[in-house]
């Protein structure tokens, strides 16, 4: 079959087979049991690039394009502005077609940019050391929980009940997979002395800022580890985990220059205290010198990783999300000191403007009184699912229906991407929906 991705001609194949001493390519498969060869594979007939582009465009178009809608949905995946410079840099094929940088001398681009990413994460979070990234926020949290158990030699993990429910599930899968235990606790619960860690999300799943000192104290009282799941954009304004005493800090890095893309690829940000360096999963890039004394970068402390430590490794992680870490690094460098603060403030003020306006509507109220950042929960006069149906017709994607957690509860998110017009429109439509789905 001819394909632009198969550069050898039949003449090439014949020449090589001659060198090999085989009369046909089938001879090279002689070790495969006879009856298992030449199986029929039922797949669609191949299409040309032109035809396939049409098919894929069609598939993409049968999704609602949020670019044409106002979106107030967050809950772990966020619409933030992505400076165009990010895509152009990660689109350079020297970056995206490279392998994991084992041969450091020809991978300085990847390595140095990861060193930058690690540094930027530390500056952002106030933590002492960051790795090169994990799969996503949820698995970063899960691996942090396991790491805490290994460091403390305890086998129980506590998670606050205001942590994202999906994250709690993933933490459960990983922790219980190792035959360790995980328990969800409420804000007033005490932390027993045989727990390895407490995991708190800041801001929490409902958008609120937790009374973080209280939880850090509970953890210190029993010599456990404090794990914080943070929102990277919130750190443009709010106290970072390194400041309030996190031992391990993890996050979903998607808000840092990575598109929504139906849930992936994303990025697990993972940072911790220097003391725990040898327990940290994932890759680490370090600075060194070459034989001529020139600065250079290598993957380092590789004896933590699976290809050396094998069954003694803390994690099996190998391939992670390096290109997304590059995107996050470029984003942080592009927005920089002023820009991240600006993004955070825009989110904050727009979200508060929206919350205030909605809370004034008859039948709607703000559920929590805690300070919040860009997400907040409202209680609605009718089922959020009904409200969202109406909103969709008005080309608005409403917040997450969390009525199974809070009566008629909806989790709304407002970012720098939402305009005043969009917010006013949302408020207008909500105002018209007052109980029993009636419009006024």
């Amino acid at each position, binding site marked *: 079959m001819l394909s632009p991705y198969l550069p050898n001609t039949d003449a090439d194949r014949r020449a090589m087979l001659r060198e090999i001493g085989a009369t046909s390519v089938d001879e090279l498969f002689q070790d495969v049991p006879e009856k298992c060869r030449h199986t029929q594979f039922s797949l669609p007939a191949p299409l040309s690039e032109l035809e396939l582009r049409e098919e894929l465009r069609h598939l993409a178009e049968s999704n609602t394009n949020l670019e044409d809608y106002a979106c107030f949905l967050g809950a772990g995946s966020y619409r933030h502005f992505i400076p165009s410079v990010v895509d152009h840099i990660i689109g350079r094929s020297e970056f995206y077609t490279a392998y994991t940088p084992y041969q450091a001398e020809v991978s300085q681009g990847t390595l140095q940019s990861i060193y930058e990413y690690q540094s930027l994460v530390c500056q952002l979070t106030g933590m002492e050391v960051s790795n090169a990234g994990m799969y996503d926020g949820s698995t970063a949290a899960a691996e942090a929980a396991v790491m805490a158990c290994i460091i403390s030699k305890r086998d129980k993990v506590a998670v606050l009940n205001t942590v994202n429910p999906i994250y709690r599930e993933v933490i459960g899968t990983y922790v219980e997979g190792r035959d360790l235990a995980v328990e969800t606790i409420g804000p007033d619960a005490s932390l027993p002395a045989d727990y390895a860690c407490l995991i708190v999300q800041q801001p929490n799943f409902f958008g609120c800022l937790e009374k973080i000192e209280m939880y850090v104290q509970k953890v210190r009282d029993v010599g456990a580890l404090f794990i914080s799941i943070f929102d990277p954009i919130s750190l443009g304004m709010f106290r970072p985990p390194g400041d309030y005493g996190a031992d391990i800090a993890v996050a979903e890095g998607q808000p840092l220059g990575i598109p929504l893309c139906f849930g992936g690829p994303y990025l697990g940000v993972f940072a911790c205290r220097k003391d725990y360096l*040898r327990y940290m999963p994932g890759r680490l890039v370090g600075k060194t010198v070459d034989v001529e004394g020139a600065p250079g970068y290598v993957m380092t402390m*590789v*004896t933590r990783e699976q290809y*050396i*430590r094998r069954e*003694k490794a803390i994690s099996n992680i190998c391939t992670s999300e390096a290109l997304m870490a590059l995107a996050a690094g470029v984003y942080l460098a592009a927005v920089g000191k002023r820009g991240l603060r600006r993004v955070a403030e825009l989110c904050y003020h727009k979200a508060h403007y929206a919350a205030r306006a909605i809370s004034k509507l008859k039948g709607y109220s703000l559920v929590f009184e805690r300070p919040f950042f860009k997400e907040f929960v409202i209680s609605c006069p009718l089922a959020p699912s009904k409200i969202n149906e109406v909103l969709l017709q008005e080309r608005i994607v409403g917040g997450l229906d969390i009525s199974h957690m809070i009566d008629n509860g909806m989790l709304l998110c407002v970012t720098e991407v939402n305009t005043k017009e969009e917010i006013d429109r949302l408020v207008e439509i909500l105002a018209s929906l007052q109980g029993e789905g009636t419009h006024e």
Partner: protein
Amino acid sequence: MNPKEYKYTREHEWICLEPGNTGKAGLTKYAESQLGDIVFLDLPAPGTQVQQFEKMGEIESVKAVTDFLSPASGKVVEINAKAVDEPKLVNEDPYGVGWLVRLELSKPSELDALMSSDAYDKYVESLSQEGSE
């Protein structure tokens, strides 16, 4: 090559008896050459009880990690802080300044089970021959 007065284990640790029932222990030249550049020593804290042939620490090189097994039973009384700060001393002088721990021995007769310098030399030679086949 290997100090005559030291005793050796099959896992390439050595122990050197000192007056007063203590002994210094470390890794042999063979071990350090197999490991390559040593970068980190994970040694037991003074006061730790150890058993002969059981793991008491880990030695990390750039490309490998190996268990450090105790050549004798007893209590750790001192670790070589200089080597902890500069792990390359273990590569440079594994029998001298690159020693790892000092133990107070609980059963000195255990040392009879270890190899003499000559026996260890022969043992290492046999390993090298195996490797080249």
